[in-house]
């Protein structure tokens, strides 16, 4: 894959606050890349810099090796799908999609043909004459995609496009977006705060926090090999413990020594240890490497979510076997379940499950998004 867009040393300051701090990013041709992070991490600003709506204070953006800081948005080979779609309320579906072509005085027959093609691509053929306010959120979304794709951009920028949709529709649209990306064969840069969305759709995930890129990698890499406590906590569920690397492939945490697969740390270097809830086996106490008391059990459908208190640290474990609250159990951890990370600015910020963070996550999500009602208007 060819390198298509490059960001080099991008910084942006709003009101004295550095929202982007020295961002370097390569985006390849035909790639589905996702900028993932909590609200205020700078992902939307990054997208807007690529689109040309925002000029960075430092650093340069290159398209195919060409510096583009003087190039206005409409001359860049990218188009944007806006968070709340930004469809033109005075035009119907057909005219919204045709907008870019009408500006260029494209012959009527070609407009007709290309709009039909686009509506077919987003499966809205029969809605051409429909008014925008007579469409559901998902349909508006697809009109926005068709409108952005009609001028055949090399890259589509999507700013939280699924945020205003309900959960079921969001799943459908994820599949739909992947299909559209494959069919058009162009680069998609997708911004979201939803880690599940990012993992299930992307070729490459860019995890951002505090205006910096925390990790770039495939969804599998990001999940299995998080580079710091922030990534580990933000992507999926994880138990993050303070630990020490005793030697290569030997670490200590929770007052116990474990074998692991990681190497290359200094002897006795303090580290963060990540253990995913699904990688822990529940065993009888006498066979356990760690022992603790179950404090809460929640049925989640496929599995039980079990909170275990081990020396005051609350572990989360996912198991298909039922255990009762108050029961003493043992935990068995395979060497490949242990992931060791270097200490970072995020160490100690994310710990155990003594308080559920779900509520906080939802709040973050809500802050970031306009309410559905607004989007419908």
């Amino acid at each position, binding site marked *: 894959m060819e390198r298509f867009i490059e960001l080099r040393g991008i910084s942006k300051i709003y009101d004295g606050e550095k929202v982007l701090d020295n961002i370097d990013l390569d985006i390849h041709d035909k790639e589905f890349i996702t900028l993932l992070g909590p609200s205020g991490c700078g992902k939307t600003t990054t997208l807007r810099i690529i*689109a040309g*709506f925002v000029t960075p204070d430092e650093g340069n953006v290159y398209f195919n090796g060409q510096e583009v800081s003087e190039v*206005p*948005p*409409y001359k860049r080979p990218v*188009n*944007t799908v*806006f*968070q*709340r779609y*930004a*469809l*033109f*309320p*005075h035009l119907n579906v057909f005219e919204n999609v045709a*907008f*870019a072509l*009408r*500006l*260029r005085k494209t012959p009527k027959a070609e407009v007709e043909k290309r709009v039909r093609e686009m509506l077919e691509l987003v499966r809205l053929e029969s809605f051409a004459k429909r008014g925008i*306010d007579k469409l559901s959120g998902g349909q508006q979304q697809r009109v926005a995609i068709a*409108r*952005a794709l009609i*001028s055949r951009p090399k890259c589509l920028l999507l700013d939280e496009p699924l945020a205003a949709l309900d959960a079921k529709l969001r799943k459908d649209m994820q599949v739909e977006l992947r299909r559209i990306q494959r069919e058009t064969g162009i680069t998609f840069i997708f911004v979201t705060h939803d880690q599940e969305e990012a993992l299930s759709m992307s070729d490459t995930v860019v995890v951002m926090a505090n205006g910096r890129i925390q990790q770039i990698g495939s969804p599998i890499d990001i999940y299995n090999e998080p580079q710091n406590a922030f990534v580990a906590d933000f992507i999926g569920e994880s138990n993050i413990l303070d630990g020490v690397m005793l030697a290569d492939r030997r670490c200590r945490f929770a007052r116990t020594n474990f074998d692991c697969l990681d190497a290359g740390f200094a002897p006795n270097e303090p580290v963060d240890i990540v253990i995913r809830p699904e990688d822990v086996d529940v065993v009888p106490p006498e066979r356990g490497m760690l022992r603790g008391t179950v404090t809460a059990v929640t049925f989640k459908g496929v599995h039980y979510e079990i909170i275990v208190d081990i020396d005051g640290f609350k572990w989360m474990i996912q198991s298909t076997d039922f255990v009762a609250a108050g029961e003493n159990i043992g935990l068995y951890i395979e060497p490949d379940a242990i992931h060791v990370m270097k200490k970072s600015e995020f160490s100690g910020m994310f710990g155990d499950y003594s308080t559920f963070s779900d509520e906080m996550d939802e709040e973050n999500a809500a802050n970031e998004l306009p309410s559905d009602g607004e989007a419908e208007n």
Partner: protein
Amino acid sequence: MTGAAQGGKAPSLAARRERTSLGVKLLNAPYLLWSVIFIVVPILMVVFYAFSETASYYAISFSAGGQEYSCELPAGEGEEALTLEEAKEKAAERYGVALSEAEFTRATLEIRSGGFTLENLRQVWSPSSRHAMLLSFLYSFAATAISLVIAYPFAYVLSRSGAKSQRIQMLLIMLPMWMNMLVRTYSWQQILENNGIINKVFAFFGLGQATMLGTPGAVILGMVYNYLPYMILPIYTVMSKIDVSLLEAADDLGCNGFQKLCRLILPLSVPGVISGLIMVFVPSISTFYISQKMSNGMIKLVGDLIESKIKDQWGSGGLNVGAAMSLVLMVIILVCTFVMNRFSDEDGGGMVV
């Protein structure tokens, strides 16, 4: 069991809804009363006077040669007005009786009112009032057009400027409106007078005197000056509601500034423009004070005509003709409003009127 529970619940819910709606009605009552007394009743009165007559006449009875005669003669107006003596003479003449032989038993000026007539409406179509209507229409049309040309770019710039500067500019627009309109118009009269400020400045530079007061331009200036804020505000309201992301989307799809104006801002601001047109046109076409002051009474618009008719002496029928003119004006305004509203979107999100 559940059915019974629901059955027990339903009436209480309904009762509660009824109570709230009664409460709402009570809250609404003062407004309703107000509109009936000050809107509905006056309109009905206008309609009543427009279609009824008020006429003064001489009721004259006399006897001559043992026969009794009686008749009614219209008192007439202006140059046609009859004195009592003339009326007696006319009455005698009508019956072929010599005035000296007539012995008058009754000769009084009476006023008759309330009878149905279309005479008032016929008078609205008289040349002088037709002329006034035409002038009103032309002047208010010009004033509305000029206001739009001034207000539209201004509202656009206003809606796109920073929050603080928007507040200051709004204040500057509203500030003159804190002063009475009569006072403001009167000061314009002082400015435009033959020995007013402008002419003094002209004189200082050795330029000739310009007669401004009394020209149509002065009247139109008065209208534009007084009603411009009513054009700016609705357009500004609609424009400031245009989502920034729509403008960004237009940028993204390749619009230059001019295309953005034509394809996006103009169509989206139509409801505000319609509101503004109505809010300037309606008071302009019915004004009388502005035309009076700015033309020194030389230009008579339909408002002035209505005013002078209504000020006529009671019994001359002026009130009825004035009412008829008002009614016709009202119908014209309603028709214009209706036609203009047809051009705005059915949702009319930005409608202020």
